[in-house]
């Protein structure tokens, strides 16, 4: 094993997630106390900006800038939303945070809400996560009893209510405008931007939406300072990241590693290497919407970087060995996107359906000339004309597979 830097996982499996006293004993809510008694929102924001923390949901937008633009907005009514929709196949990092240390998450939510000036915070949980909803409910009640939530928090002038909102379990609701639509009671579909949620979000008010993992970093930054956080990780992106390694590895699971860790190290050192007798074929980084990484790219660093060849996405990594059936994989990706497209725009709604149809035919080996042309056209239109990034995601893995394994996919002899 490697020497670990622990920020989010430091209390995991050490405390009982259902007991707030355990969490407090382990250092929980110190950051909140520090924030309330010794800091101003502007100062705390400065720390977050210094830290270089960026969104862990996939896009990697700098958190400080997002919070700042909400803080700047005038008007009393603002909202903070913690995005716990996590529906990417093979991703369970946000869920794990709730399972192991819900109070760290809650503390982060409270601090961020107070920084932006929100009096109401929502935790948007995927409706399928019944267990996590119960844990969070308990955590919120306990925190309220200790006056971490509610009126005049810890004797200060701050007020905050936290509500847990269970969505109906849709992948697209992880996209922030769709998530806002969902809370408002509309269909979970993305809205056109601008206006951005930071100016006109939930119920038309300025809203900050942060991924759960991002939020969980906040208490550490407030306690230890942004400068120290910036020293962890790589030059381009600071901090640690929860990586989920699945597939043919000896020891699959969630690992906290500094950003900039090489993919090879993650597989070898953290996940224990390939299972006995299995040969590495490729890895998919970033869940179903991620790109495929072949052996020669294993040395690449995993970090949030706009120009990176491998976008990190949510941090879910699927390791595939040479015995895997590529047709089955294609079909499973496309079944996912066919089901999870919201149905708003034409290319995504119809295109994912058609790709799914073709993937079925590919599996049966009944592909025609017409299909080969159709695949090209659909991938192109998904990449160029969809309303939101989901369409692009749907085309990523399929397109990568097609360019790398054309021979296997079309069952060509040579």
């Amino acid at each position, binding site marked *: 094993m490697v020497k670990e830097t622990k920020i989010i996982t430091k209390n995991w499996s050490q405390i009982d997630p259902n007991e707030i006293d355990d969490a407090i004993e382990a250092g929980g809510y110190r950051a909140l106390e520090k924030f309330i008694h010794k800091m101003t929102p502007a100062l705390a924001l400065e720390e977050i900006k210094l830290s270089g923390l960026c969104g862990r949901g996939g896009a990697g937008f700098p958190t400080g800038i997002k919070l700042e633009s909400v803080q700047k907005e005038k008007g009393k009514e603002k909202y903070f939303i913690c995005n716990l929709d996590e529906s990417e196949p093979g991703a369970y990092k946000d869920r794990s945070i709730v399972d192991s240390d819900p109070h760290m998450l809650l503390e982060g939510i409270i601090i961020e809400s107070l920084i932006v000036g929100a009096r109401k915070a929502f935790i948007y949980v995927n409706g399928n996560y019944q267990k996590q909803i119960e844990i969070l409910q308990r955590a919120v009640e306990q925190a309220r009893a200790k006056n971490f939530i509610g009126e005049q928090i810890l004797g200060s002038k701050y007020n905050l209510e936290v509500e847990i909102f269970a969505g109906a379990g849709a992948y697209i609701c992880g996209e922030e405008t769709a998530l806002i639509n969902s809370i408002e009671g509309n269909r979970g579909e993305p809205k056109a931007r601008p206006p951005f949620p930071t100016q006109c979000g939930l119920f038309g008010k300025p809203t900050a939406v942060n991924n759960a993992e991002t939020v969980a970093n906040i208490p550490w930054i407030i306690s230890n300072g942004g400068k120290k956080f910036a020293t962890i990780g790589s030059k381009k992106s600071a901090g640690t990241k929860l990586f989920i390694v699945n597939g043919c590895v000896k020891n699959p699971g969630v690992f906290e590693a500094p950003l900039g860790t090489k993919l090879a190290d993650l597989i070898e050192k953290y996940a224990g290497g390939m299972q006995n007798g299995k040969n590495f074929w490729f890895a998919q980084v970033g869940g179903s919407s991620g790109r495929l990484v072949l052996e020669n790219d294993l040395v690449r660093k995993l970090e949030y970087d706009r120009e990176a060849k491998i976008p990190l996405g949510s941090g879910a990594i699927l390791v595939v060995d040479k015995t895997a059936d590529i047709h089955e994989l294609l079909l499973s990706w496309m079944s996912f996107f066919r089901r999870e497209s*919201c149905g708003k725009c034409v290319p995504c709604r119809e295109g994912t359906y058609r790709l799914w149809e073709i993937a079925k035919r590919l599996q049966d080996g009944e592909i025609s000339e017409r299909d080969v042309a159709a695949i090209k*056209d659909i991938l192109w239109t998904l990449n160029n004309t969809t*309303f939101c990034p989901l369409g692009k995601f749907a085309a990523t893995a399929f397109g990568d597979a097609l360019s790398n394994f054309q021979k296997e996919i079309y069952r060509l002899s040579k």
Partner: protein
Amino acid sequence: MKIKINTKEYEAKDGETIFVACMKNGIKVPTLCGTKNSHEGVCRICVVENNGRLITSCNTKVCEGMKIVTESENVAKARKINLELLWADHAGKCSSCKKNQRCELQNLAIEQKIENFHFVPRKEEMTDRENLDLLKDNRSRVVVDEGNACLTRTTELCVECRRCINVCPTKELSFNNRAGDTVVGTAFEKPLDCIFCGQCVKNCPTGAITDKNDLSKIMTDLNDLKKMAVALVDPAVLESVAFEHPEISCLPAGRDSRGKLISVLKELGFEKVFDLGFGMELSLEKMTQVVKTSAKNNLMLSHCSSFNLFIKKYHPQFAKNILAVAHPDELMAEFLKTEFAKKEKINPEDLVVVSLSSCIAKKKEKGQNLDYVITVRELGRMIRQKNLKLQDIKESDFSSGLAVKDEKIKSVTRTGGMAEMLAKKLKVKYVVADGVPQIKNILRDLEKGRIETKIIEAMVCEEGCINGGGQSRKI
């Protein structure tokens, strides 16, 4: 600000979309999902190129220094693929479709030269009993809704453009299911029971929502030698008819199509064609009487059928405020079947009264004397079915007997017209509500007692019958 479109520079206003800027300068950009008031960017057909990137023109605002290209290889490719995908979702039963030759999807396919298709249509038939399964089952099915007198809905032809959802003033329609299974529908797929303003029918680009009609019955009656068919022409349809059939408008274009329209109706087999203005005068007379004798205040005029339905369905507490006067078409039909029939010595049962109307709600509220209500679109279908050559049509005049005394009566087709005339006659105060949002405001005020007036006139379609649900869609 200045933006470049294709090769020339144009002046564009801050805050307007690329689509509007193009339209204003006479540059055509095709679209399928846009309506007058909403541009959602759903169909992805209005894509244009800006500095090499594809963007939708309908919901992207203009910026300084934009270089828009409306026709390029990529733009054409995107439009073509998206249209093809849409077409595959559409049943494509053009020859038997009510909207044949008037279908925007069909026209676009012709315009974009879609010739060979990659995909097979995929919708399956669904019967009523399986309604509940629809919610459980994720397969895409066809919902056919014919449980009302005014319109027919079939998702088989639907391309999920959302126009109907966006224009619906009472939000009866929305999406069910998601992804490829998305269909437009009512809550729990219950039969549609709304105010039937018909805006969805008017705006539907395909044949997914169409007028429910008895065209075959009307045709039989028209061909029946024993029966005498009478057509009533609503003055509100004249402009719309000219728009739907440019051939029958007199020059200068679109000014008035009355003369030729009458000939067309006669050609179709109507023996007499009357002006509905006569019925409007009857209606005004009756209303004057009722209002004069009523001691009550806040009386609601009843000539907008959709408004009557709106009150019955959503605000039944005000049902007693509505005047018990039938709409002009019904009053005129009643007159025809009693006094006119007696005078002309016709058996009332042999008289078939058909109203050419701008409204589809009248189909539901038609009463016992009026036999059929047809819209401008249905007239078009009759013309196409009969293969009438409109170019050679001469002008003629309304049949004699039921002349309109004062042409001013025709202002009742506009919101507020009827109330204005009544108020002038009776010297009373009145309030006018134009469109559902205003109606809602007024009803709220009424409930709180903030309004006290003699008469209230409300029309569901904005600006009145000129924008009625039975009219042709103007772009």
